[in-house]
């Protein structure tokens, strides 16, 4: 108790009383992210600057406490919760745009800036920030960087790493360093993006902004079979058309979304495909006729476009609110996140249905079909232990089938606490040891977000603390 009091005093000395939380009711807010499992920290701090982050890291080091950096807590794999005690650094008060260089299409931002706020604030310059996770209304750029977040528009723009030009980072000793993708030397920026807070704490980032496309169109197509819809997705991509988004929803999701948002999706279809094409007028027009021909060939009931910007926004609001809408079906849901080669989508979806049927779990599918990135939502009631166990088994079975199809265990949510032991299913000891070598350089004492990403049994890459 005395030690905790001293720690609290030191943190307040560095950040002021309004920047430090140690009351149990405050701490419990930070015990969870959007994953089911959590762990309460000893203290939560809300720094306002790089210097304050550095000061906190130094104090934590002195007290031997681990550190977890946290944005809005929208992560789905338990990446932003402490494994055991430790200090949570919330970046929510570091939310400024520090520099905007519209002519060269870049901006330097703080990690707590909300993803959508960045696009809103550069819109007047005709620019936008491309990574758009479904949580973009609340998730932070820092969190997006930590998880290398994706989103529906990854299909043409790629994940967050494609849009980060350089970083300012506080390391595990409290020292500040910077990286730039234009520096000579190793691409440390790429190594840090997606490292889930295990290599350093990002305190600002140069990000790439894109010019807003002159034309954007969104269509929905309705199918009587999931299989036909996923074959249409493969056919569109194989035909050399890369829409900016190619999203799929099954009837479970469409029913829930329509009841919640009245987004304008056709009801009664087995699968709804949401397609967006953006770019130049000429290309968008050509894409529309090509896509229409392909979905018709695959037996689509119909395809229709949003006629107004409001209709388009409603279609996207439905897609981005899909997970929340499942609250109408069951009190809780668990999102699996696996990625398979696109042509394996129909097989992967059959495996999802079979696993759900075997364990008597209701499943809704809403996912980035164009990337082969599946998100089965497994619905359950947390109070029913039988259902909880069945969800775990179903989730594992889906993971297994994705691996068998040559896929990966996370397409965009990350590994975190949830999937760390599954890392051995896709990587060998040598593969993991190579990652461990990077960790050794940046966080030799394993103080930054410990017990994440690396399998619990991994000893091969660990070193004795100096």
């Amino acid at each position: 108790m005395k030690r905790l009091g001293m720690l609290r005093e030191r943190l307040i000395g560095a950040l002021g009383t309004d920047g430090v939380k140690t009351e149990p009711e405050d701490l419990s807010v930070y015990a969870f992210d959007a994953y089911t499992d959590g762990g309460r920290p000893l203290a939560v701090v809300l720094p306002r600057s790089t210097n304050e982050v550095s000061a906190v890291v130094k104090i934590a080091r002195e007290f031997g406490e681990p550190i977890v950096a946290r944005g809005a807590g929208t992560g789905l794999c338990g990446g932003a919760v402490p494994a055991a005690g430790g200090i949570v650094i919330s970046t929510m008060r570091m939310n400024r745009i520090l520099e905007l260089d519209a002519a060269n299409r870049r901006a330097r931002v703080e990690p707590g800036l909300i993803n959508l706020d960045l696009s809103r604030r550069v819109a007047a310059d005709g620019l936008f920030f491309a990574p758009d996770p479904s949580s973009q209304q609340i998730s932070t750029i820092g969190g997006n960087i930590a998880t290398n977040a994706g989103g529906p528009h990854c299909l043409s723009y790629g994940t967050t790493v494609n849009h980060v030009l350089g970083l300012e980072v506080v390391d595990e000793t409290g020292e500040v360093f910077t990286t730039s993708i234009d520096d000579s030397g190793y691409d440390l920026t790429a190594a840090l993006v997606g490292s889930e807070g295990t290599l350093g704490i990002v305190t600002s980032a140069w990000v790439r902004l894109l010019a807003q496309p002159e034309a954007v169109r969104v269509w929905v197509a309705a199918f009587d079979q999931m299989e036909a819809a996923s074959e249409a997705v493969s056919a569109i991509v194989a035909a050399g058309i890369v829409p900016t988004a190619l999203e799929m929803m099954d009837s479970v999701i469409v029913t829930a979304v329509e009841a919640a948002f009245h987004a304008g999706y056709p009801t009664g279809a087995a699968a709804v495909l949401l397609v967006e094409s953006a770019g130049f007028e000429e290309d968008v027009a050509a894409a529309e006729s090509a896509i229409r021909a392909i979905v018709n060939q695959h037996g689509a009931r119909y395809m229709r476009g949003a006629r107004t910007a409001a209709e388009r926004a409603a279609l996207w609001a439905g897609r981005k609110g899909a997970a929340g809408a499942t609250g109408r079906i069951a009190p809780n849901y668990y999102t699996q996140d696996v990625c398979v080669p696109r042509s394996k989508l129909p097989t992967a979806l059959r495996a999802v249905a079979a696993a759900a049927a075997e364990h008597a779990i209701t499943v809704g599918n809403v996912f980035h079909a164009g990337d082969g990135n599946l998100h089965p939502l497994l619905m359950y009631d947390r109070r029913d232990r039988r259902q909880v166990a069945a969800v775990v088994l179903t989730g594992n079975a889906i993971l297994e089938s994705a691996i068998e199809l040559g896929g990966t265990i996370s397409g965009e949510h990350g590994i975190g606490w949830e999937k760390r032991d599954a890392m051995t299913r896709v990587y060998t000891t040598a593969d993991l040891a190579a990652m461990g070598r990077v960790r050794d350089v940046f966080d030799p004492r394993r103080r930054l977000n410990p017990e994440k990403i690396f399998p619990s049994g991994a000893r091969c890459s660990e070193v004795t603390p100096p």
Partner: protein
Amino acid sequence: MRTATAPVAPETIDALGTIVAQADRGGGKISIAGGNTLSGMGLPLEAPALALSTLRLTGVVANESADLTIAVRAGMTLQGVNVLLAGQGQFIPFDAPAPQYATVGGTLAAGWLGPRRHRYGRLRDYLIGSAIVLADGSVARAGGMVVKNVAGYDMSRLYVGSFGTLGILVQANFKTIPAPGHARIFLAPLPERTRERAFAALAALPVAPSAAFWVDGFHNSIDGDDGNEGRVAVLLDGSEALLERATRDLRSALGRAGVPETRVFDTGARESFQRIVDAYVANLGERSVTYRIASFPTESAERALNIQQLARRYDLRTETIVDALNGDVVLRASGLDSRTLGGKIESFDDAIHELEPGAQVIACEHPHRVHLNAWGEAPAAVERMRALKARFDPNRTLNPGRFVGGI
């Protein structure tokens, strides 16, 4: 620059791993090369080394054309890959010099940045998986054959641009993109008074070109010269309908900027573009040195003029390529012969780094190359880079001394 002794060229990853493991255990050093097209980058090795070539490590490991993914061995040439992909209506924007010789592994290891990245993104963004032979001979794989993957650290991207100093890249898995159907190139003289306005007009075009250059000199690379004031070269690619519109926009924009006459080619457009890319590292034997400076598009023309002036003060002849969309400035400075360049090259190198601390040498065959600041100023995080090298290659077996900061 070919090595004097014949390099060892294993045909399998296992055989390559065995050679590396033996060298590592016995204290031997290994220099690693693909097609030698970018051998002018970096420093000479600090110790005599066994030359290891990836040229026989060829072949397609997997070609999932419907998925738009492909996995190849590192020794395949860029041309080999792109000819194969072109047959499927796909491509990867490699954009490196001499694609008939350049290998996939070498291009990735050098972190080569092509002019079309403004439109298509960096080559590293297409790398979805990799296999690397580490200094102890073991093989580490990362990523896979899916286009989205966030399972663990992004090791593949870390190897891009690492010059073989963390390990030897032996396999690369890429995502591909549909190839644009048509290409067109514009060439026009670019008198000095029009330059600034032409650059601004290019940046403001609604349909962004795939590449746009101001080329001053390099007479063998492209035609349509206008004395010493250079030319503008613009590459458009895309659908026929898009090219029609882009052509109208570009013509009127350049016209408004005062660019006197524009010539347009469809036939041979891609070849003309490739000749400009080849020029980046084309050297004049021992009488030239070529620098590359990363800049911002809004500053690149002015910075190019400053270093041209500097070179003239040293009585060196200059030729320049400015990448108007990405901001890269390439300067080839040359003397009458090796001797006249040799008398100035080291003091010019100091002066250019005073003006442009990040300037990198990308092509030089002059013997004084060993005394040049080939990488420019050390990056801010150089100590962490050294630590990475020490952790991956503790015996300094792989390309020792060639990379940034003596790594």
